[in-house]
Each structure stands twice: as C-alpha cells, then as structure tokens.
C-alpha cells in the first residue's frame, strides 16, 4: 500500500490533521490502533469525564438547594444506565468522526503500526499488504497514563484514569493517588455519586503547577466533599486485601495503613513514543520521551512531523488539534507556525480553575515585572444569584504598556470564561481594551471586564483609589 500522507493516531490532533490535509487536496490515510476514532480525549479522557462531571454537578446542586428552601431526596443512581449514557456520548462522537472521514475520503485503517524506516510503516492486524509506504507522516500517537511499577497489582481495584472512567461500580471508598487535575476531577465524580473519596499527594499542594490562591477555593470545597486529603504524604505500598486494597502511607508522623475499595493511580501521563519503531527513523526523542519538533512541527526526520502529546507539554487536546493544522499547512508550504501567545489550561473540578498566558508562579520564578488586578466574585451579582461567590478573576498586567500578560479564573464555568482572555492575550490587548469592551449583564463573563476596570480604578462595585502611576 502507499499513501501521500499517513497520520499515525486518531485523536484530536490526528483527525484534525488528517481532515485538514484531505480538505487541502492531499491523499490521506489515518492509522489508529484502537477500534474507534477519537483518541484519549474522546474515548477515555476529556469527553467521558465531562459527561460524568456534569452528572456530579447536578447532584451537587440539588444538595446546595437546601439553603434556598428546596429539599431534594438523595438521588437513586442506576450505574448501568449512567454508564450506557456516557458510552452513547462517546459512540455518537466517534461515529460522527468515522462519517466525516468517509465523506472526506480519508482512508481509515485500524491497526497497530511501527516504522520500518523513514517512509514505511508495518501494520499489525492487516491480513495482506501490511506495509504502508508514505511520502510524509504526521505522528500523533498521544500519551498514556503513567503507572509506577510499585502500584501495578493484578486486580481491577487498582485503576488508572481509563479504568476509573469505565465506572464499573460506585465503590464504597476510593483513594486517589496524585493531587493533579485528573485525580481531582475523577475524585469529584465518585464523591458526588456517593463514594468516600480520599486524595494523597506527595507534595504540599494540590494542583502543584497552579497559583496557590486559585487552588484555595477549590481546596475549601474539596475538604467538605472528600473524606480525606493527605498532603506531604507518600504511598509506600499497595497490597490486595479482603475485597479491598490495603494502602500504607508515610508522612512526618510515621507509617499507617488504611483500606480502600478501589484505588485510582493518577500520577501523570507519559508520551507514547516507545514501541513505534522510531529508532528506525531519524526522529529524535528527548530524555522524557517526547519527540523533538520545531515550530513547524517537523522532527529531525525530513519525512516525519509530530504533534500533540507525543510532541511535548502541555498535553492538551486543544494544543494537539492546533498543531495538527499547523503541521499540515507547513507541509504545504503555508506560512504557518505553532507560536501561540497562550494555551489555556482548565481544571474541570467544582469550582473550575482556568488560566491562560503568564501565571504568577512563572512571573515570580522568571523575574517578570507585573501588576495584579483581582476581582472577587463576591462583588458579582450573577455569582451571588448562583450562590457561588467563592471565585475570583485575576489579571497580570505589564506595567508600562498595560498589556494583558495572563489571566486566571477560579469559579463555576471558569473554563468557558477563559476564552476571552486567550483572545485578549493573542491580540496584545491592554487592560483598557478589556475594560472598555461592554460585557453583558448579569453574567460571570463581566468579571473579566471588571478585573481590568479594577486595575484602572474604575470598577463600579469596588472602591479602590486609583493606583499611583507615572503620567
């Protein structure tokens, strides 16, 4: 077999690249090892977790309504029906992708592939003619959950994120190892469904890369939702006990053991670059396993580009799909480069946390000068109406030019609200640009405009003398 362009991996980066290349007139083959298209994002990541988080949010809201005089009974949960509904979301989206591939005349092959050389892939599970010769390849093989050897037990009671999303049951108790965004999101789902969830984190902080003040409102809420949050604590061992996993912790007070019905290991993800035969090509891989690429997503091998999780941090679907399009355009000689000013990051917990551009952590470690504007949601009518005033919107501003360097939001729907900030940063907008953009009232999106106004000292709901600035 031969093809002009082969895209290896059918996730959000891979299918975006394949479809765009087909639209631009290339002859495209998409190779995916899984039996369905969609990749981690659609099959065992963003989409199923958001479907389940939506359910968790509804459960949480019914309980909050007690304060308003609305008493709901505890929900009766049919796990099989819930699982089937989540599965339908996935199969609808995946089926849609297959249909789009067909209409665009993208040839889809479901097979495991490995490189024989820089222009030939060997396909496993294809009956005959198992060699695919290509003119160019876009490698989009993604990433897989990291599973340290010490936590590998031969039981489905110890799960990675994929296992947790399968939702086999609602266990009585669950330990989440790792206080990163995947652990906290899935922990939230299980906790709202009725599981006693505990989180253990080796470092002193949940969400270690986020600014501390953003995590605080989430931490306050999780303390009520979760049975336990163990910081500065190490998991020494996991052993299979009687219908449970016995976990030995170690912290400054010594060792202790606790039993959990299930354990979720969410200690990060690693790029899927091994076992693909990349050693038979000129592709370079760094010490963390990422494929080294330039701004046009080209690898050291002239016939191979790489995009998405396998091509470096951050491992996010929206980064992958943008890179996929840049890689295709670059191949066709268009002046495309992957050089964004901001890649938004969102943690879909309750409240959500989202940021884009420069963070305070980064500004401090890199010695970048900034001024901070912070708008507390306690001053927002919409937040009050929702009964969710714990959030805030903050903005990092360059003192001389008043350009927006970064924006971070914690609160309900922060993930949707951050988009305006990404556009502002990409466009080089100033605080005044945002302040003089009329935001609809009453919405949470107003808080972005208000944060900029509070910097200029013109926020209506906040009394703050104008900051002394050079005229």
């Amino acid at each position: 077999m031969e093809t002009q362009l082969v895209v290896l991996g059918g996730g959000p980066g891979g299918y975006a690249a394949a479809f765009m290349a087909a639209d631009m007139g290339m002859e495209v083959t998409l190779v995916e090892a899984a039996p369905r298209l969609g990749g981690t994002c659609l099959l065992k990541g963003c989409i199923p977790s958001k479907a389940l988080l939506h359910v968790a949010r509804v459960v949480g809201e019914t309980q909050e309504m007690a304060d308003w005089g609305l008493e709901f009974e505890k929900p009766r949960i049919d796990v099989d029906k819930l699982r089937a509904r989540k599965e339908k979301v996935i199969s609808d989206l995946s089926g849609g992708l297959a249909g789009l591939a067909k209409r665009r005349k993208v040839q889809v092959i479901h097979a495991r592939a490995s490189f024989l050389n820089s222009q030939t892939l060997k396909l496993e599970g294809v009956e005959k003619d198992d060699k695919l010769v290509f003119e160019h390849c876009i490698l989009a093989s993604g990433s897989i959950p990291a599973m340290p050897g010490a936590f590998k037990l031969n039981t489905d009671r110890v799960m990675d994120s994929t296992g947790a999303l399968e939702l086999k049951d609602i266990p009585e108790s669950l330990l989440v190892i790792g206080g990163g965004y995947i652990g906290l999101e899935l922990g939230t789902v299980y906790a709202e469904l009725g599981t006693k969830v505990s989180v253990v984190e080796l470092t002193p902080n949940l969400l270690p890369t986020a600014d501390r003040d953003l995590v605080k409102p989430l931490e306050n809420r999780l303390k009520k939702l979760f049975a336990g949050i163990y910081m500065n604590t190490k998991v020494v061992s996991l052993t299979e006990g009687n219908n449970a996993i016995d976990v030995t912790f170690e912290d400054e007070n010594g060792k202790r053991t606790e039993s959990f019905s299930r354990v979720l290991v969410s200690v990060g993800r690693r790029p899927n670059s091994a076992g693909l035969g990349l050693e038979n090509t000129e592709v370079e891989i760094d010490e963390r396993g990422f494929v080294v690429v330039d701004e046009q997503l080209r690898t050291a091998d002239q016939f191979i580009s790489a995009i998405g999780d396998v091509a470096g941090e951050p491992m996010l679907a929206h980064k992958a799909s943008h890179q996929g399009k840049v890689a295709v355009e670059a191949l066709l000689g268009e002046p495309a480069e992957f050089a964004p000013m901001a890649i938004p990051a969102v943690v879909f917990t309750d409240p959500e946390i989202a940021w884009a551009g420069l963070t305070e952590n980064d500004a401090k470690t890199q010695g970048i000068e900034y001024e901070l504007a912070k708008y507390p949601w306690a001053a927002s009518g919409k937040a009050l109406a929702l009964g969710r005033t714990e959030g805030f919107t903050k903005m990092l501003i360059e003192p001389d030019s008043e350009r927006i360097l970064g924006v971070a939001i914690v609160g309900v729907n922060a993930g949707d609200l951050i988009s305006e900030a990404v556009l502002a940063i990409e466009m080089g907008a100033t605080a005044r640009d945002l302040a003089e953009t009329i935001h609809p009232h009453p919405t949470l999106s107003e808080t972005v405009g208000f944060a900029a106004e509070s910097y200029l000292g013109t926020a209506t709901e906040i009394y703050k003398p104008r900051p002394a600035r050079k005229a």
Partner: protein
Amino acid sequence: MANDFKVPNLGENVEEGDIVKVMVSEGDEIAADQNVMEIETGKAVVELPCPFGGKVVKVHVQEGSKVKVGDPLLTVEGADGKATKEASKKEAAAPKAEAADAQADQTEEATEEEVEEIAAKVEEPKPAKAPVKKPAAKAAPKETAPTVAPTAAPGKTPPAGPATRRLARELGVDLALVAGSGPNGRITEDDVKAAVRENVSAPRAAHVAPGAPLPAGTDERDAWGVVRRSKVTAMRKAIAVNMAGSHSTIPHVTNFDDADITELERIRKGGLSDYVGTDIKLTMMPFVMKAVAQALRLHPMVNASIDMQKEEILYKQYVNIGVAVDTERGLVVPVIRDVDRKSIPAIAKALTETTDKARSAKFKLEDLKGGTFTISNLGAVGGTYSTPIINPPEVAVLLLGRSRKLPIVGEGDKIDIRLMMPLSLSYDHRLVDGATAARFLNEVISYLKVPGRLLLAP
C-alpha cells in the same frame, strides 16, 4: 538617461506576484519614492514606490500581469542623481568579473560620477543602514513617556494578533523591528505591509547574504573588493581539460524529451520495503540504466566510438555505463560494466557499491575507464533539462532531470496526471544522426513507460 524600475526583493521566499494596480501612465512625471504600482504577493497587497523620479517613458506591465523579482516594471527617463544607482551599477560592473556584484550593492549611495570613478580606485563601503526604518509613532499614547520607544523591548513579543503575525511570517518581516501604529505600539497588518515598503525602498547595503565557506587560498583586493586566489586542484584541472576538449572537437546536439514513469515509480515503491535493512538503495537509476542498456543493444551506433585519424567506427559489443557522481572534490564518472547482462537488483547493488567507492575516494583509475555511454542524474538537485557534455570517446550522454507530475493528454483527449521524467540526450553529430538519436531515445522512453518490457528483458 533612462532607467528601468524592476520588481524589487519583496521579502523572504517571495519570488513573484500579480500587479493589481498601475498608478502611472506613459508620459507621467514621477517623483522619487512615489508609489507607482500595487503588487499582490500571496495574501498581501503592497504598494511599490519607485526609488527614482523622472518621466515615465514605458510601462512594461499592466494590471493582472504576473511578475517575478527582477522583471522590469517602468522605464523612467531623466532620472535624478539617486536614480542612477540601479542602472549604472550594472554598467560599471559588467565589463569586469562577476565578483564585483557584492561590492556594487555597497555603492548604491554613490552618484553616477562616483560610480564611474570606483572602477579606478577602491571605495570604502558606506555605513550599513537598518533593513527596516522605524517611522515616528503617529500619535504617542498619553500614558507613554516620550523617551519610551513604541515597540516592545528586545526579548518581549510585540503586540500583534495571530493574523498579523502570520502575515509577517509570510512576508519575512521581523515584528521586533516594526513600529506599531496602534495604541501602545500595537502592530496591525497595515504596519507589516508598510514595513515591507520601507524595506523595499531602503538601500540594500545591509543585505549582503552570508556566503558559503571558500576553499583555502590567499585573499587580495582588486578594484571592486576582496578576491580569494585559490589553486586549481588536479581533479578540477582534469575536468576542465576534458570538458573543453569534448566541447571544442565534438559537434554536440541535444534532444529533449520526457518519459512517463508513473507505472515504474509504482513498481519501485512497491519494492522499496524489500530492501529495508540492506545497504542497497532502490532508486530510479538502476531502472534507467537497464532501459538504456537494452536500448543501446538495439541501437549500436549510440554505443560506438569514432576514430577520425584512422577513419574507423568502433562498435562496442559490451555495454559499460558511466554514472556521474557529485563528490566533495568534483564530478567523477565511475563505470558499471556489462549493464545489459545484469538484473536490475544486481545493477542496484553494483551502483551502490560504486558510488560509495567514488564518494570515499577509494576508486582506482581503472574504475573510471572503459565506458560506452554516460548517465548523469540532476534530479536529486533539481532542474529539468540541460545540455550535457559528452565524455569521449563515448558518443552520447543522457541527463535525467527531476521528475514531476504533469497533465498529459491521453487517449480520447482525456487529461491525466502522470509522473514525467525530463530527459536530455546529447550526441556526437559526426557519428549519430538526429533520427538515430531520436529512435534511441524513444526506445529508452518506451522501456520506462512500460516497465513490464524492462523486467522481461534478457
């Protein structure tokens, strides 16, 4: 005197454009740096200022014309002093060595008289100017202190949206050097286009491209600049003597044609994976060699030699094909023997061994002798047709260009996309008649087009 205003350098990787608007007509008087055309390159429309003034005596283009960098746009008569740089630098440089070009760029600021003088004396180059001038900010924002430049400080990214940044990439403009016209120096797409215009009308003195490293030798100065004096290597000398001898004694004629290698390429690609892990590279060359060898058996005149002193023709009953190999030291042509009696895989193997030997300089003089025909492959470097020089005592040489897909009118007037390989056959017209050469080339083309014939060849 009259000067031509030519399409200037429009930016990195921009070589051509469409004229969308002509703003002057013949007979118009124009001032220096007046905008005279609008040209569209990719997605950007840029106004072109003519660097010199005078009377327009000829407009060489019209709206819709496609132009390339260097094409003439206007002829302007009675140009002012500044004008003469374009034309006179060429005149001053032309009678002397090509090496003068680089120096000529540096003399653009000189007047006509000065240009004439520099033929006799060495002129110090004028100080270089920045490639993009920063125009004064249109209206400094009130918050900005007057001493602060409107653009971002070095190391910071200037404020410009993604669409503007893409346009800058397309036009090869460094945003750090562009002055933004928006509040706080925000750069718009118009600013980027303006920067290109500035770049076009600014003197090019700073644009001396970094050159490739030169071989060893001694540097000295002539009237136009520095020249490296380097010894001719033995190999270069041999090439020079052979080429000059061949070209002056043999009446060369070259036929151009194309071979349809669509089917052959499919077969070659299909076989590629069988050679994974071996040292053999299955390129197009072994197939072409086999086709040529078979054709030479059928057209012995092309596989012959002529001896003018004895008035004899020597028909070679063997087919030894020389393959031109580009090495670090120059061109060498090692010979592969009995190609007509070898299978294609055997030719591929012999070719790989021979070229490796040639590149590592391990070849013996014997390896270069006894050829009856030469094939030179320009395809890897690029280019279509050329007029190759015969390697005597051979009487023909075939040059392969880079294959490319072309629309070909097939049976029933259907247009089909076919992969076509450009071929240039030079032959010694003392021995080989035009018709003989054409029949031979047709034979080669037919073998390449129907590779089944090639595979069944004895």
